């Protein structure tokens, strides 16, 4: 921890944490206005791709893995093998998707900067959290009101 006040040139005035300017190796040569506009749209595409991948993590990928597990169980008559393969596929695909999302997030930061924004941090964490909340809410609606016990209550047959 820095404790010598003279390390900042004798002044006690400093920046708030996280507000330091971005350090580039060399001052970037920015593109034309058209290029910056294209970069802005490209950043939006990358954002959409990250969102799509994130959504896949909360529904389609687990569902696909369960389907693969079920197929293995059906073909080999081995429940254990089916569960094992389902989990292997699930973790492989989830972590693969997260890695791809992280790379896309880095690209998104660079493209945003190229588009003229002072982009300090990525967006993948927030997208992941928001899509999780959306998917969890959707699952709860489906589970309670459409396919689960709620559907019985709504149709008036619950408890009969």
């Amino acid at each position, binding site marked *: 921890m820095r404790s010598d006040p003279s*390390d900042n040139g004798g002044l006690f005035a400093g920046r708030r944490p996280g507000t330091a300017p971005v350090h*580039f*190796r060399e001052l970037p040569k920015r593109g034309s206005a058209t290029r910056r506009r294209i970069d802005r749209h490209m950043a939006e595409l990358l954002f959409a791709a990250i969102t799509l991948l994130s959504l896949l993590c909360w529904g389609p990928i687990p569902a696909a893995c369960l389907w693969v597990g079920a197929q293995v169980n059906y073909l080999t008559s081995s429940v254990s093998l089916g569960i094992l393969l389902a989990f292997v596929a699930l973790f492989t695909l989830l972590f693969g998707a997260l890695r791809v999302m992280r790379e896309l997030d880095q690209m998104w*930061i660079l493209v945003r900067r*190229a588009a003229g924004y002072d982009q300090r941090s990525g967006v993948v964490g927030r997208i992941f959290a928001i899509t999780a909340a959306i998917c969890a809410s959707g699952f709860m609606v489906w589970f309670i009101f459409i396919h689960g016990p709620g559907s019985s209550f709504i149709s008036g047959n619950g408890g009969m």
Partner: protein
Amino acid sequence: MGLLDYYRQFEEVPEEEVNRELRAEAAERRRKALTRVATLDLSQTTWPDLPHANISSAITFTARRGLQRYPHLRGSELRGELAERHQVPVERLIIGNGAAELLSSATRALIEPGQELITSWPSYPLYPIMARRAHGRAVPVGGGVDALLSAAQSADARVVALASPNDPTGELLASGELGRLLAGLPEGVAVLLDEALVEFSDSQPHDASLALLENNSRLLVFRSFSKAWGLAGIRIGYAIGGPGSEELLAELEPDLGVSEVSQSGALEALRSGIDSMTHHVHSVREERTRLAAALRERHFDVADSQANFLWVAHSELDGSELATRLRQAGVLVAAGAPLGEPHHVRIALRNAATTERLLSAIDKALAQAA
């Protein structure tokens, strides 16, 4: 630039790398600061250290009390303190904005256009300038009291301006010699005795010349707070005259007095700065003896000095050349060439550490010459 390179230029340098570079830069700065040796300026006769803190406090207090007021025209409190210190009536002591201003005023008051100011030479460069400003003529005289007396026989001679100890030679005019000068001067020739450096002398009491004032109304003695007191920045000096000099002294006083801020600094120096001044003077006296002996060992011609500097020459090294070599070694001294003494340099005295550094630089300069 390729497409990927275009986007890669926006990549951020990792914080660890930035910090590593900043730490390396800071270490380099510290290393340079530690290896850099500040130039030692021994060309000035003023004291380089800050004055006693009480003096700065007194000045600040006075400034806060009221800068909107005019100062007391005759600086009565400071005058009283100085008069008591020197055991002279307060009417025969005036204060001014430095001894130099009082000397100039005295020259203007005493010299008519075309008349002469006689001064020993080499001496303080202000004296010929004072004569010119009074539309008079400076007559520099080499030699001692006899040469001055001879020059003063001129019909146009009106003022003899002397520094004791003399700048740059450091020579002190003994009170006996001063008495002989005063006794031998023609009627109408006044003596302006500049004792700005007298505190550094130890060969006779500091107020020895003041004892001569009682019987010599033509003698004016000038003292300063700029040298031994280390208060050159506040510009305070004073003049003392003999009986009958009150009218002339009143004429020399600054028209609207001396800054109250400066007076308060000088007054506080008399009250609480005596110890530090005495310590500083003793340090100079010790180094004067030590440095003079060391320089004589190195075959320098060293004038007997009673001031805070030594006036030296070397048979094998021109004064300007010596000053240049010392400057290259990081020590500044005053070359004698501007005073018409190209073989000499004036070296101010400070303390043991500066003497050591100076001697080391001199040894280097002499080794280059060999």
